[in-house]
């Protein structure tokens, strides 16, 4: 496993970090959500984690940012244990929540400016410049004064990404960035993820079940199924998957004669 050295200071040139998931298990009560998941994300790569709904993808992300603690196993971010509170101070991580998780009482501008203001990074003029730059990348300049409740679903997602960008993160985590969006907006978000990686040299971990996103912008793709990681490899492998479960997940055929739910009822 490759691990970048931990960052002590918050400098603008902080390098991308590696993420290591080592034999991670998570149980909620008697329900095993993650079962012995092991993989690593190299610094600066885009790793897409795919899988059906309820396969434990979002829970895995919450482990990486330290919002959940593993039942067993370890999550390492930039060489530091993710459960350690200091990891968040030393490694700048941006998580783009599925629903945005924007601060509803603050305007879009203040949502973006909160991180630099609270961490005293730069003066108000410098912050304004950073925020406007992030808004510009995501073509949101006209939304700066709006409240999150006045935005459409696609705009909220973009604001959430912009808010993560202002942090100048070393690791960017996206939770279903293209779900609930129209195909063009979904493609736009994929392009944004790829260009953000190119521009900021950030490690990106994308949780998604968007096949186009995985095939077009990822360096590697992992597939999580019922809490188990059943395949990891470059996106080219996904065009002709060997595993029938993966094949069915990636290219589901709509079969009206033999529908899946009927098969479930029969078994």
């Amino acid at each position: 496993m490759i691990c970048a050295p931990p960052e002590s200071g918050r400098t603008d040139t902080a390098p991308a970090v590696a993420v290591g998931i080592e034999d991670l298990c998570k149980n909620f009560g008697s329900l095993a959500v993650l079962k012995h998941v092991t993989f690593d994300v190299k610094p600066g790569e885009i790793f897409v984690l795919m899988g059906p709904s309820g396969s434990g993808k979002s829970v895995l992300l919450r482990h990486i940012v330290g919002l959940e603690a593993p039942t067993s196993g370890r999550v390492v971010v930039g060489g530091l244990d993710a459960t350690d509170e200091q990891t968040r101070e030393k490694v700048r991580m941006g998580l783009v929540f599925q629903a945005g998780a924007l601060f509803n009482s603050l305007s879009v501008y203040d949502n973006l400016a909160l991180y630099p203001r609270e961490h005293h990074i730069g003066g108000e003029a410098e912050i304004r410049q950073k925020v406007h730059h992030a808004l510009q990348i995501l073509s949101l300049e006209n939304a700066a004064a709006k409240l999150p409740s006045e935005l459409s679903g696609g705009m909220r997602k973009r604001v959430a990404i912009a808010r993560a960008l202002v942090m100048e993160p070393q690791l960017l985590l996206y939770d279903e960035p293209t779900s609930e969006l129209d195909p063009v907006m979904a493609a736009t978000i994929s392009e944004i993820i790829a260009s953000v990686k190119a521009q900021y040299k950030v490690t990106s971990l994308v949780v998604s079940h968007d096949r186009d996103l995985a095939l077009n912008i990822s360096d590697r793709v992992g597939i999580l199924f019922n809490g188990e990681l059943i395949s990891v490899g470059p996106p080219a492998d996904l065009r002709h998957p060997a595993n029938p479960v993966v094949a069915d997940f990636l290219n589901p055929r709509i079969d009206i004669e033999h529908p899946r739910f009927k098969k479930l009822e029969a078994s």
Partner: protein
Amino acid sequence: MNQLNSIFAGVGSTVQLLLRAAAHVPSLPRQRARFFEQCYLIGYTTLPIVAILMFSVGAVLALQSGYAMAEYGAKDFIGSLVGLSMARELGPMMVAILVAGRVGSAIAAELASMKVYQEVDALETMDISPARILVLPRLAAILFMMPVLVMIANLVGWFGGAIVSRFVGMISISSDEYFAALRGSVKIHDVADGLAKGEVFGFVVVLVCCNIGLNTRGGPREIGASVTRAVVVSLVMILVLDYFVTKLLLATST
């Protein structure tokens, strides 16, 4: 057994929250804007209802005691009775109950919805402590505003008593006599005891409501449940603390 466990868990997490907020006290000067905003929400917007309630409490107290005391020719003591019961007990108690219902419920609802809609998680991933920016300004604001509210409550209550004593035919003692009796028996330390009680109640109410809000899990229904819980727990805390704080204050003053 489960309920006992959840009570202990609640106490534990409340104390933890207090310690985490206390660790950020040095950041308070930088959070002036949030502090003043909370002072406005907690203090200023609560004033009208405090004034209305305390006026009527003072008035009814004078009426009831006047009715009872007139028979024994003890009308002169109405000022003392209203004055002392306002300053020592009813002022801080009633304000605390209003704060629980008006401010505590709003705090619990706001923090619970922030938690449920992942805003609190977002703060944590951004390495911004919720205890620092959500809890600390509210605790500081209640400490600052509670004495003001209790003092205004006392004054309005005394005034309500004076008006009833003056204008109700059965009692009809002049305001001079009423306030002379009041001044004669209400000492500075009585008022100070009341303010201290109010300070304790207000602080505990805000802390408890913040903690219950931040520990909400689930959806809209749980937000509602948290608000109810926050108000109920606050009221119980006020009643329990009232006895012990009063006992402590009486012990230290003698």
